[in-house]
């Protein structure tokens, strides 16, 4: 029975992950096009996507390398863009921490914005899932996200400049995340966290190396935690 319920969780994850193709497709293609235009070979472009799987960090690194920035600066900036992954890792640990080591290694490798956001949405909606079901759901969700990332990179590198950039496809990423965040704003504390993070991220957007994102994220989490305590105390009175 455990196997059957894990299988159905995998399938549910796969189905829930399909809409992400709409954002992975243009983003992967864009990376393929931009990287080859910057002078990377097909192998280098695809290796980048397979080894790193983090679109925003890849674009940051490529941009800085094209400007001949020192290697240490390239690495530090791109990793700063990816610092949010550590927060995702921490956030999933209460759910997926007890999984086997090889599973946790695979989960870590596939942990990107889409797989994190989709998974945490499901775990909050269904808190009673077993570990096997949660793990299966994660891999189900990663299936239409990560392999297509490699494939669309390859496609973009092949097709190159034949792709029009005026289609507004850049906006697939913000739209998809907004669609996921809105239903998550269930409690006043969640709303406080989101508003604080937005204001801080915009206010500190001028900082280099994407520190605005880190300030916004950490500030929003702190505000959410404070708000939760405040509203709990208020209810207790």
């Amino acid at each position, binding site marked *: 029975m455990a196997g059957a319920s894990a299988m159905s969780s995998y399938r549910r994850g796969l189905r829930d992950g399909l809409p992400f193709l709409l954002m992975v497709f243009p983003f992967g293609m864009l990376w393929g096009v931009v990287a080859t235009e910057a002078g990377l070979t097909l192998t280098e472009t695809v290796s980048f996507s397979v080894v790193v799987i983090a679109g925003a960090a890849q674009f940051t690194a490529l941009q800085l390398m094209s400007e001949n920035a020192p290697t240490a600066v390239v*690495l530090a900036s791109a990793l700063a863009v990816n610092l*949010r992954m550590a927060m995702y890792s921490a956030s999933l640990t209460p759910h997926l921490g007890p999984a086997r080591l090889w599973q946790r290694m695979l989960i870590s490798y596939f942990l990107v914005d889409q797989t994190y956001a989709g998974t945490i949405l499901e775990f909050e909606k269904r808190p009673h899932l077993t570990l096997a079901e949660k793990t299966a759901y994660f891999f189900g969700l990663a299936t239409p996200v990560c392999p297509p990332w490699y494939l669309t990179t390859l496609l973009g590198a092949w097709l190159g400049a034949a792709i029009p950039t005026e289609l507004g496809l*850049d906006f697939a990423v913000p739209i998809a995340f907004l669609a996921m965040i809105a239903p998550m704003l269930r409690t006043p504390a969640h709303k406080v966290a989101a508003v604080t993070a937005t204001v801080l991220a*915009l206010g500190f957007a001028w900082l280099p190396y994407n520190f605005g994102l880190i300030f916004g994220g950490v500030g929003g989490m702190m505000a959410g935690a404070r708000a939760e305590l405040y509203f709990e105390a208020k209810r207790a009175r």
Partner: protein
Amino acid sequence: MIDRTTLWIVILGLGFGSFALRFVFLGFIGNRPLPDWLLRHLRYTAVAVLPALIAPLVLWPTATDGQPDLTRLLAAAVTFGVGYASKNVIAAMISGALVMIAGGYLLI
């Protein structure tokens, strides 16, 4: 032209570093219980980090060289509104995409 050695150092370094960031809690904490104060903060990771990630992209899109764009602002507002009211992720995504498509035809 990007130097080949630099390129591979960056690919491998960034790959290793990104994996380390993703593995740090899942891998090293595992099933040890986390303290309450930390769990309380982690509950807000998604609703804090994701808005912080997209807010600048909505207000200052790279595609328009950072100029606020009516279609994109409208698409963002509709996506959020539908998502908040219906709690339906797919309905929200489709609504936002429709605004982008409509905006592309009407405003160009």
